[in-house]
């Protein structure tokens, strides 16, 4: 029997907001043994981070633990004085946070920050602290710690910073590590490395780890047991294998189903949870999930107790799902997404079709056409966007006189085409140039060379009325619509503004357009009188979509449209984007770091690496038969919500970190991280070669054998690409 490290009993944490007290954590119990990793999962606002902060007693001023016990090694932390608690923090329990950029002190060297817990808790001498710091930095995989100790955080990459963060937490060898979304701000390839590191350290130091995350994939691969939280309550707890194999709580089930899977049928609707989590100050009576639950019955006006559904499997629900064999989450992933309205309670059986989208007001939405029909139609469609040998370089200046000392090669010779009605997905790690490329397509930035054509015209050449007219055809959608919506304007005015500016219709017609847009994106018409801050993130993204559609554009460029949203909301927006595309004949250029989202949304995917388009092809093809080692690595790195797959992956698929775009590696830019790299990769830049219709990749040693007729293969069906561009750099 492993030693019990943490035992949280009936924890309740309240926040005093204005005049009301809200319980952000309500009756949560959990235990973690030595060497064990327990996951705490849920959407934002569910209380998972607050649980972590409550254990550390690091709550903001308005928050207090009001009841319950937090036993660390048998000692209750709740009644400790602040001074006593300081002895515990950083020594017995450590915590790491989401954003390594802001979580490290920018004005202290990393050495000083790693050494700090040693100085605080052991009063270590300078020499002893330095030795231990170097040891810890080495432990977390910082290369050449001795040269790095005097660096400041901004001199390190995001991945290294998170390693430093982990080092600061581990310097004093705590028994328990609380990791709050430790990889959410990182790229998938780096995420895999950091999670590997945490796994290894947990074993080596036999630490207990509480892993707080919103990502079911991360949970599947890294935890021994899971607790699912919703609106401050624990709704399900089980071993990880059990939870995924036999999900019982309707919320956990729905959460799993709404994650876009790489294996997803892209033509089917993504099951999603309607609505959004409740406001903690206005909780529904009884089960908190009831307003969104498709199994809700009159019984649910009572609060369901957390009870054992099977050995060691706790569920708080009157109608747990998966009681019938084979109807667990794994089986439900393939459930058909047929449209229907919100089921009226009581309609409990598990056969109820999933709620189709977050836009229940649109019942007339036609069934999505199947994949084959869509492909055929697209292949015949005219090309709307042509990107031709596009290059963007930013000067780098240095020295006293700000001379140009080099350039950032943000986008290097990229060519592709997007057909009318097509969704083109651009994927890659941050810093790969995908956003720059998107901005050039949206005519927000001037290419260094090369051209972008929209409907045959080069936007940046147009002037005056032509430009204005063309601008209407092109709209943008951002990651955080809040930043792009004027906070002092009512939503009605925000939506109407483009119509006024462009002089479309009279006043009455404009308001009608606004009203129908709101219907279409699934917002109440009352929204016109509200301000952007009165909406949740998902609703704001709907406003962002409505605004993009006001002028009836042909092309919408969406930069990370769903990455700021919770999964349940994300699936609503993805469904909405697809429905709007069908109804308006929209063409999308979607930029995302999330290959699973793009696989679901896109017809064609372009994979970018360090300014180069390394692979391009139909979405299914890219996923099923990646030719480029980088694409393969990206796919491998995505955490899949299935423990059997996730736990079988050992070691991160892509090593190292993105090199500098100022001096990209010679030859193949991926060679510094490629497991297949040979000498020729450093000498010769690999040309784009064909791997089937519409599928091209640039690699000397591809994972597939190239199609015999390279020229034919180089001209994709779904999208036009220029001929392979050998040695162009």
């Amino acid at each position, binding site marked *: 029997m492993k030693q019990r490290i943490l035992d949280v009993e009936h924890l309740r944490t309240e926040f005093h907001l204005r005049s009301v007290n809200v319980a952000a954590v309500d009756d949560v119990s959990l235990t973690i043994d030595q060497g064990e990793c327990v996951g705490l999962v849920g959407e934002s606002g569910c209380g998972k981070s607050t649980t972590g902060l409550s254990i550390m007693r690091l709550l903001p001023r308005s928050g207090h633990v009001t009841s319950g016990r937090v036993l660390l090694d048998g000692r209750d932390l709740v009644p400790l004085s602040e001074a006593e608690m*300081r002895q515990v923090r950083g020594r017995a329990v450590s915590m790491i946070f989401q954003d390594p950029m802001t979580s490290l*002190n920018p004005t202290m060297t990393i050495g000083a920050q790693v050494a700090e817990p040693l100085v605080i808790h052991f009063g270590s001498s300078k020499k002893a602290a330095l030795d231990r710091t170097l040891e810890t930095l080495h432990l977390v995989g910082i290369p050449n710690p001795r040269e790095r100790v005097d660096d400041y955080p901004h001199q390190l990459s995001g991945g290294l910073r998170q390693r430093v963060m982990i080092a600061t937490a581990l310097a004093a060898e705590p028994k328990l590590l609380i990791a709050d979304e430790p990889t959410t701000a990182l790229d998938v390839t780096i995420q895999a490395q950091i999670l590997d590191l945490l796994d290894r350290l947990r074993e080596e130091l036999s630490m207990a780890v509480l892993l707080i995350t919103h990502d079911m994939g991360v949970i599947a691969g890294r935890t021994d047991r899971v607790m699912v939280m919703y609106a401050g309550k624990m709704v399900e707890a089980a071993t990880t294998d059990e939870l995924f194999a036999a999900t019982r709580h309707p919320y956990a089930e729905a959460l799993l189903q709404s994650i876009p899977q790489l294996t997803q049928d892209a033509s089917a609707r993504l099951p999603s949870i309607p609505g959004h989590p409740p406001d903690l100050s206005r909780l529904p009576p009884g089960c908190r999930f009831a307003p969104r639950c498709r199994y809700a019955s009159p019984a649910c006006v009572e609060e369901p107790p957390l009870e054992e559904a099977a050995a060691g499997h706790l569920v708080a629900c009157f109608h747990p799902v998966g009681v019938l064999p084979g109807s667990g989450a794994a089986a439900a992933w393939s459930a058909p997404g047929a449209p229907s309205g919100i089921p009226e309670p009581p309609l409990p059986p598990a056969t109820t079709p999933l709620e189709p989208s977050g836009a229940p007001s649109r019942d007339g939405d036609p069934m999505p056409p199947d994949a084959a029909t869509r492909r055929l139609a697209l292949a015949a469609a005219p090309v709307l966007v042509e990107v031709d040998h596009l290059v963007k370089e930013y000067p780098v200046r240095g020295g006293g006189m700000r001379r140009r000392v080099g350039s950032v090669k943000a986008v290097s010779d990229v060519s592709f085409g997007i057909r009318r009605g097509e969704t083109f997905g651009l994927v890659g790690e941050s810093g790969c140039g995908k956003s720059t490329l998107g901005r050039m397509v949206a005519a927000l930035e001037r290419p260094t060379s090369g051209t972008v054509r929209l409907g045959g015209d080069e936007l940046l050449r147009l002037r005056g009325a032509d430009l204005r007219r063309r601008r209407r055809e092109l709209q943008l959608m951002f990651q955080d619509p809040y930043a792009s919506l004027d906070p002092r304007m009512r939503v009605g005015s925000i939506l109407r503004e483009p119509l006024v500016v462009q002089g479309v219709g009279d006043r009455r017609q404009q308001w009608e357009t606004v009203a129908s847009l709101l219907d279409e994106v699934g917002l109440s018409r009352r929204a016109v009188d509200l301000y952007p801050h009165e909406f949740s993130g998902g609703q704001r993204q709907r406003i962002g979509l409505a605004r993009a559609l006001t002028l009836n554009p042909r092309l919408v460029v969406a930069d990370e449209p769903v990455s700021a949203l919770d999964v349940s909301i994300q699936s609503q927006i993805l469904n909405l984007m697809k429905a709007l595309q069908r109804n308006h004949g929209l063409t999308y250029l979607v930029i995302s770091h999330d290959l699973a989202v793009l696989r679901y949304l896109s017809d064609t995917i372009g994979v970018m690496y360090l300014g180069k388009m390394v692979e391009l092809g139909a979405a299914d093809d890219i996923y099923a038969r990646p030719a480029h080692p980088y694409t393969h690595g990206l796919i491998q790195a995505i955490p899949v919500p299935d423990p059997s797959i996730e736990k079988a992956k050992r070691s991160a698929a892509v090593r190292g970190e993105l090199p500098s775009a100022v001096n990209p590696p010679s030859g193949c830019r991926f060679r510094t991280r490629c497991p297949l790299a040979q000498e020729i990769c450093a000498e010769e830049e690999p040309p784009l070669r064909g791997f089937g219709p519409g599928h091209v990749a640039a690699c000397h040693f591809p994972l597939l054998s190239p199609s015999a007729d390279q020229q034919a293969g180089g001209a994709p069906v779904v999208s036009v690409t220029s001929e392979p561009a050998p040695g162009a750099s």
Partner: protein
Amino acid sequence: MTGFVVRRFGQAVVVMIIVSIVIFGILHALPGGLVRAQLGPRATAFSVHELTIQEGLNKPIVVQYGIWAWHALQGRLGFSYKLNESVGALLSQYLPRDLLLVGISLLLAIAIAVPLGLWQGYRRNRPDDHALSALMLVFYSMPSFLLGVILIVVLNIWVDVLPSTATNFGTGLGTDISVLALPVFALCLGNVSYFSRYMRSSTVDNLLSDHVRTALAKGASPRRLLLRHVLRNSLTSTVTLIGLTLPYVLSGSLIIEALFNYPGMGLLFWNAAQDRDFPVLLGVVLVVTVATVVGNLLADLGYAALDPRIRYK
């Protein structure tokens, strides 16, 4: 760092050249131009002619500027016929006193405001913070001469502990300190309120930042938190503010000096303004500008020294 320093120095030099051109332009536009400015209105035609030749004032304007700038660099800024002394000599006599007054009050303001703001930020929205904020608001809303008058009334007229005029400055260390006390306070209180408000708000921002939460998670004590994690980060923005307020401190000192009869540049400027003694006026303006530019330069260098993100650009 070197690149940053070099660039910043370059900027300062450019600003100084622009300012000097403006001042030269004003001098040139005066009735009688540079010659009268130096010789005074009652000079004979002969001496005007002589000086015109001697100073090269019959040469093209660019050359004239060059000569003037060269002289200015050497401290030759013309001659005040009102005071019968060269401007350079006047300035070298008055300027150190100003540096003393302004320097002491500025240092004192920083020495009080930084810990005060740090403390207020730490105790934000508690009664003591509110009380201090209210007090600071009083100082903040009062012009420095009003503060000066109040100080005189309280500490000189009601309770006679400090002299209200500084006319006998320079007659010994003891008198100097007592003489300086009131002007220094009058000048510094407003700045204390200004700096401390700023320091308080940047302290609050820093205390709520993620890296402070990390420090807390390591078990840092409040003392360690404030001194090691918050002070330096909050100072970076405050230092810039101090640099930016320098011109106001200097102009404030002009009034305070007049009020207390302190024989500094303020008094010089005040008298020169009443007498339309242009060479002196422009000399003072030039010195004040140089001081401002230098102050800003120091502030930026201080900022760079505090914030490694600037240093390693």
